[in-house]
């Protein structure tokens, strides 16, 4: 909903301070995943209590422990997280309650925002379906979203699709890193994730089950493995449809690798619902 808030700000319909107050109030209305799981009969109250006890000794979220114990499937957790996002009080409603905007003006703003979002989504889907290897790209995107959800417990959403001559990695120490893997078959394809430092540290901390604060070899290798699991799972799925590609080991590419290897890639930007993700999905047909 941060995107809706941004929309209201750019339209000059709310003030920055008013939006912050409303977002804080909105976060108080979130229904816990455990309660939703019981409501959907995915977990018993006893299981939720057991997980709560486990959480006293390990710093893990309910969904994560439920997945580990195989009490929830990844799809069930995704459904619960989506329900949680849909169930919380809408930002527009909170803004109206706080008197930031009259109901009629809010209804007009919501209608305009939804129309823009729907058109944007339609354009993205159309664009993706017309790309060469669209089946591979869609499958890679699906597994990327699944692995982000599984690892970080947050769903991701596509926000843009475009073509680029080359990715710009920058040169300072906080530059984003490009984790890439090639798959070879009838054609040679390249999949990559361009991630900023905080996203890399967050992913690696979740995967290693301990907080990491430096981009050391193990952290970078963990994210390479994150890419490896996306590509491996995706290629296994594609083989069922008769598409045969063999993965090479993933690695961290430098600017020279990108310049030499990654010509005209498809770039998909992805965000978490709260907007706090800086990830770019890249796909290219190698020369």
């Amino acid at each position, binding site marked *: 909903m941060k995107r809706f808030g941004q929309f209201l700000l750019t339209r000059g319909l709310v003030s920055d301070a008013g939006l912050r107050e409303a977002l804080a109030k909105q976060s108080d209305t979130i229904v816990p995943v455990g309660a939703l799981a019981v409501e959907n009969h995915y977990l018993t109250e006893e299981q939720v209590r057991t997980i709560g006890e486990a959480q006293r000794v390990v710093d893990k979220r309910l969904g994560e422990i439920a997945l*580990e114990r195989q009490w929830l499937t990844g799809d069930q957790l995704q459904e619960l997280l989506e329900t949680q996002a849909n169930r919380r009080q809408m930002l527009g409603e909170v803004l109206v309650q706080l008197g930031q905007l009259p109901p009629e003006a809010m209804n007009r703003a919501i209608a305009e925002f939804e129309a823009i979002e729907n058109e944007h989504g339609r354009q993205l889907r159309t664009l993706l379906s017309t790309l060469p290897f669209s089946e591979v790209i869609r499958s890679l995107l699906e597994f990327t979203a699944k692995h982000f959800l599984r690892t970080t417990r947050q769903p991701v959403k596509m926000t843009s699709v475009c073509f680029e001559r080359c990715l710009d990695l920058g040169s300072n120490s906080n530059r984003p890193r490009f984790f890439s893997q090639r798959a070879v078959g009838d054609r040679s394809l390249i999949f990559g994730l361009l991630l900023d430092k905080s996203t890399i540290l967050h992913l690696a901390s979740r995967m290693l089950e301990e907080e990491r604060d430096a981009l050391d070899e193990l952290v970078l290798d963990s994210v390479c*493995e994150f890419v490896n699991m996306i590509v491996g799972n995706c290629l*296994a799925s594609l083989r069922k449809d008769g598409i045969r590609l063999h993965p090479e*080991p993933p690695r961290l590419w430098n600017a020279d690798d990108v310049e030499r290897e990654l010509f005209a890639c498809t770039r998909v930007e992805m965000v978490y619902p709260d907007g706090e993700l800086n990830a770019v999905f890249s796909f290219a047909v190698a020369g």
Partner: protein
Amino acid sequence: MTRKCRVLAVDDSAFTLTIISTYLEHSEFEVVAAARSGNQALDVFEELDPDVVLLDIVMPGLSGQETLKRMLSIKPHIRVVMVSSLGTEEDVRECLDIGAKDFLPKPFTKEDLIQFLRRVVDGSEEGHVQ
């Protein structure tokens, strides 16, 4: 006293080797060596004489399948479990045909790994589990 089941982990990913060692801590399994390549694993394989090998498929240099063949030629009854994110029926069949005992798909949880290893060891005649 029954000794722990000795595991040799082979994966080019330092992450996977770290997580396998972490997951098996305080279990009846003990990682006796973690090798980053097939060749590195073969260098220590005979000397360490592990009970079980966890072996990645996609690695630079010697592939998992080739490493598996060489291990079996040295020790025909070694229990080798293939570990990979590339879990198609075809991959599983190829590795089982060569002589792998089973196939563990990535990603896996601690519970997945321990239960899987127990099953592999319990299913053999030479189990060393406590």
